[in-house]
């Protein structure tokens, strides 16, 4: 009897130890990076359909720089250092595939495209949250904002939809097991914070440096999985009624370099600004 009980107990210790060792040896970080298509920074901005739609003709599309330079590259660096996988997710139609292949060429493991035309941030965030909720991602990386809509909305909305903590506008992240330590920009300074368990972050400058895909990356990206999934049924809460271009600036008034007082007079009397 006593020997039996000792054996049972030993067995249970061995099981626990095995689980601990396998968790330790086979723990793989599972990261998700939200990647959005954006017009190149230097694109000429114009509108069509009576100002309702961005005119895409002749526009070069790129990976939204915040998603690429900071979120994606930092996620890849973490997986290179600790093991694991980086999945990218994009809400969009097939015109997004070239930028998704570029993300794979930079070093993402695989990619998912949710087949829907993005309309507003509530729709995009709900689609990504619905896809992610059963996937068990450890960290969901987003860029701070897209350079077309400048909203900074999707990451916080994903966090709310999934009931996760959210660290906004982060400039660095270090991960140790299930614990992540980040630096984030807040009003008047920076916060150093720690999060335990899964969470969402938005990344900005400082996280990492831009990476140019090498030939091997570009070749391997062709055969990496890009899975297209149907969009779940979600509603949008807002829509753009009209885009407008800002009024054209008048000519710059030049003041002689020796006449700083004249500039001050103009700022005071004409611009009424000082």
């Amino acid at each position, binding site marked *: 009897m006593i020997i039996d009980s000792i054996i049972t107990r030993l067995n249970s210790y061995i099981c626990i130890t095995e689980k601990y060792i396998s968790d330790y040896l086979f723990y793989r970080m599972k990261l998700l990076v939200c990647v959005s298509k954006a017009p190149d920074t230097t694109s000429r*901005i114009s*509108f069509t359909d009576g100002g309702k739609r961005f005119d895409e003709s002749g526009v070069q599309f790129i990976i939204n720089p915040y998603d690429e330079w900071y979120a994606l590259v930092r996620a890849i660096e973490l997986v290179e250092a600790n093991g694991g996988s980086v999945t990218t997710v994009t809400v969009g139609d097939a015109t997004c595939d070239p930028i998704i292949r570029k993300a794979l060429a930079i070093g993402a493991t695989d990619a998912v495209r949710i087949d829907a035309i993005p309309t507003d941030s509530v729709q995009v965030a709900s689609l990504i949250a619905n896809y992610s909720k059963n996937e068990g991602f450890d960290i969901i990386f987003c860029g701070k904002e897209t350079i077309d809509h400048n909203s900074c909305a*999707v990451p*916080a909305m994903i966090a709310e939809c999934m009931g996760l903590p959210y660290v906004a506008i982060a400039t660095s992240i270090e991960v140790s097991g299930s614990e992540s330590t980040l630096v984030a920009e807040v009003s008047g300074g920076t916060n150093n914070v720690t999060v335990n368990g899964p969470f969402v972050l938005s990344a900005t400058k400082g996280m990492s440096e831009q990476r140019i895909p090498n030939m091997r990356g570009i070749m391997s990206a062709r055969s990496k999985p890009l899975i297209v999934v149907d969009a779940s049924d979600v509603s949008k809460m807002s829509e753009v009624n009209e*885009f407008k271009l800002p009024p054209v600036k008048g000519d710059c008034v030049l003041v002689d370099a020796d006449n700083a007082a004249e500039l001050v007079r103009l700022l005071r009397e004409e611009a009424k600004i*000082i």
Partner: protein
Amino acid sequence: MSVLVYIPTHDGRATNAGLEVASYANAISSGSDVVALVSGDLSGDGGIGSTGVSRVLHYATDINDNSQISKLVTSAATTEGAHTIVFSGNNEGKAAAPRVAISMNAGYVPGVTSVSGGKSFTRNVFSGKATAVVDVNAEVSVVTITPNSFGIKDQGAADASVEAFSAEVGDSKVTLNSFTPTSNDGSVPLPEAVRVVSAGRGLKGPENWGIVEDLATALGATTACSRPVGDMGWRPHHEHVGQTGITIRPDLYIACGISGAIQHLAGVNQSKVIVVINTDPEAPFFKAADYGIVGDVFEVLPKLTEAIKAL
């Protein structure tokens, strides 16, 4: 029905960004009650009453986690039957407001710059290269206001009445280890600054920033810099304005020795008046400027500082 506005505070007083969102909430209320919500220390009414807001809900605990702020605001918005919820477009507002939009099943319009009617809101898009009029299709609208876009409208009104408010905000899963302020010199933080003096590679080295700081001091302005200057470590990163840095919207932006690359313009093109000082008459920045001086910053800046001091 009411308009609920979440007011950022510092040392018990509404910040400039806070007074601005209170003023905005008043301007769009068109007959609805305007209710302000504050968390943490509050001395008196925090100056909020001056904007014409007559009721302040006060949650006594200081909370910083966006999840908790969201629960607090959602609770107050539900209690007050808010149809519009207004946040500042500072980093904290941008982190909490989208959560409220989800929890309230609301439409979300960030970066609003002016007052328009009903459920239509005007905001900047394409890094300031265009504006969009956004219609909300839901009963409730959640908006953030771009700092320094609307301004503070002091109505000289009486103090607001302050009521204690309690709500279940849950535990924060984000532990704050430390806070590092960007500057201790007491200057206004860049996103809220009304006047900014910015300099670039034309200054030739970090040791030459004295003339920039002198002009900023004379004007009561905050200093900023271009990306290369931040990257080379001449100036701290938090001063970097532009596409990948901070977006600002001051009344006056003076650019010294900055050529005006499109990425830089994206961060500053919403400034009300832009002054460019550069030796190169072909610098692209002159096309975006209201006033310009073609000349050497090392000669022009001291003269400009003297002329300002002479006012």
